[in-house]
């Protein structure tokens, strides 16, 4: 793929991912990942101090699907809407057959009184594989600057 085309695809992948979660299509979320994917959410203060401290740490797509079932059928959490702003998408290097990329995010939650608040600001650190419109995350590390969670964490970021 030529650089401009790849960049368009990676941006489109990020936008599709954001829309999937903003529209609460949880069942589709694991499909953005490879079977052997790694997905984790790590508060930035831990990362900066060389600590794991993950809020969530999943190392295959089965774990992602379990999260979806649990969120849909079992866990109880705040009733809310989500809205993601994704920007600063950059491809920063090669990773075997794939690419290393990053992007900034801002997640806004709106509660069932209609009040919106910033839930999390941070950065995606990605390893992406595939081509021709079929890009997937082999790894998506969510690094949250907002290292104190407002209330609680339910949906993926």
């Amino acid at each position, binding site marked *: 793929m030529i650089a401009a085309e790849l960049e368009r695809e990676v941006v489109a992948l990020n936008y599709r991912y954001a829309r999937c979660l903003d529209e609460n299509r949880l069942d589709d979320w694991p499909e953005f990942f490879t079977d052997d994917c790694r997905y984790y*959410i790590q*508060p930035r*203060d*831990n990362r900066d*101090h060389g*600590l*794991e*401290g*993950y*809020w*969530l*740490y*999943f190392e*295959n797509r*089965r*774990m992602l*699907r*379990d999260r979806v*079932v*649990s969120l849909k*059928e*079992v*866990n*109880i*959490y*705040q009733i809310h809407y989500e809205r993601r702003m994704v920007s600063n998408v950059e491809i920063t290097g090669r990773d075997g057959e794939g690419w290393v990329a990053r992007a900034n995010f801002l997640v806004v939650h709106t509660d069932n009184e209609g009040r919106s608040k910033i839930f999390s600001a941070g950065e995606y650190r990605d390893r992406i594989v595939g081509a021709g419109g079929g890009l997937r995350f082999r790894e998506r590390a969510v690094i949250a600057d907002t*290292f*104190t*969670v*407002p*209330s*609680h*964490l*339910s949906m993926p970021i």
Partner: protein
Amino acid sequence: MSAVLRPGIPQPRWPAADFTQVPFSVHIDPALFELEQERIFRGRTWHYLGLEAELPNPGDFVASYVGVTPVVLNRGKDGQLHAFVNRCAHRGAAVVREKRGNAATHTCIYHQWSYDHKGNLVGIPYRRGINGNGGYPADFKPEEHGLQTLRVESYRGVVFGTFAKDMESLADYMGEPVRQRFDALCSRPIRVVGYQRQLIRGNWKLYVENLKDCYHGALLHAFNSKFGMFRTSQRGSTQMAGNGLHCVLTTYGKKDEKMGSTYAKVGTYKPAFQLEAPEVVEYFEEHDDGMVSTVLSLFPTFVLAQIANHLGFRHIIPKSVDEFELVWINFVYADDTEEHLYRRRMQGNLLGPGGYLSMEDAEALELAHATILSQGGKGHAFVEMGGREMADQDHLVTEVPIRTFWKGYCELMGMRVGA
């Protein structure tokens, strides 16, 4: 109770000495919150400050809070632990700005007054003036301008402080069942694997009650029952200490009835859902007595818990009458094998701000606090599960620890009880 209460909020009234009714106003009264700072947080109690594992070297420090008061725990050049209030004796600015680090001395940015690890004032710019101008009066005594200090004690590497210098020892304050859990969980060297923080819109005591609330475990946290992890019918115990203020809840597994293995074998209990990735709940036995989980809450704001193989401390930090921060300090043992570390990392998904077994607490507490607030603190919570008694129990179908907590709280706060 001598506080002048905010108009419109009823004086907390405890109708019965069995503490089966808890006045909602205790969660929303700003005057009561102030009184708690005086009588609990600056009173005769011990408070979590940090871990020796966080302070291996002289000069290492961690910043924390005792109630709303910012404090710093230091390891001095003498290797001893010291703690002071993080408030410059000159003009009141926070002296230490980082959450943790290493420093030879601590210097306030404002006018560069500097302090040693014990909080002694050791540096004062322009103390004798410049070219005959300014300077402090001749009777200025640096030793009278140190930082306010706390008495510090450590038990099995967990460090606590108190403003009550003549306080009983930390070990005596804990009492036998609490010490037993520390001995069981903190006898080996530990390593901190991370800090998790959440800011919850609710009074800090709602979380303390929640920690003592055996009733909600399998109900609110449906992951337990729907995935066949834990049932209220499981063998357990409820033990109190410290005049009812501390509490140790424990569950035990039978051979065929353990988290993880229950899940894997299913057995007689059919979970509603199957996990595709059971590695999240699979655990290894760590205790000879079959203990699967234990949650120890040490009054006022400290928790030591093992849930399956997940190990952690929790620190509740009140921010205002309506808000508290919950800090999870997760740890492993320094001599853990790779397999142990893997299990603990996987089970990390169970706890914390987004954990399968814990995310609901914040939602439940915020729902409670919001309605208590909107109703002006009127009315009482009803706390009669397991009857009206106050004794230790050999099961978890009870609200006894909530009742004993409020009894101890009222005594410490000097609140009138009954009618």
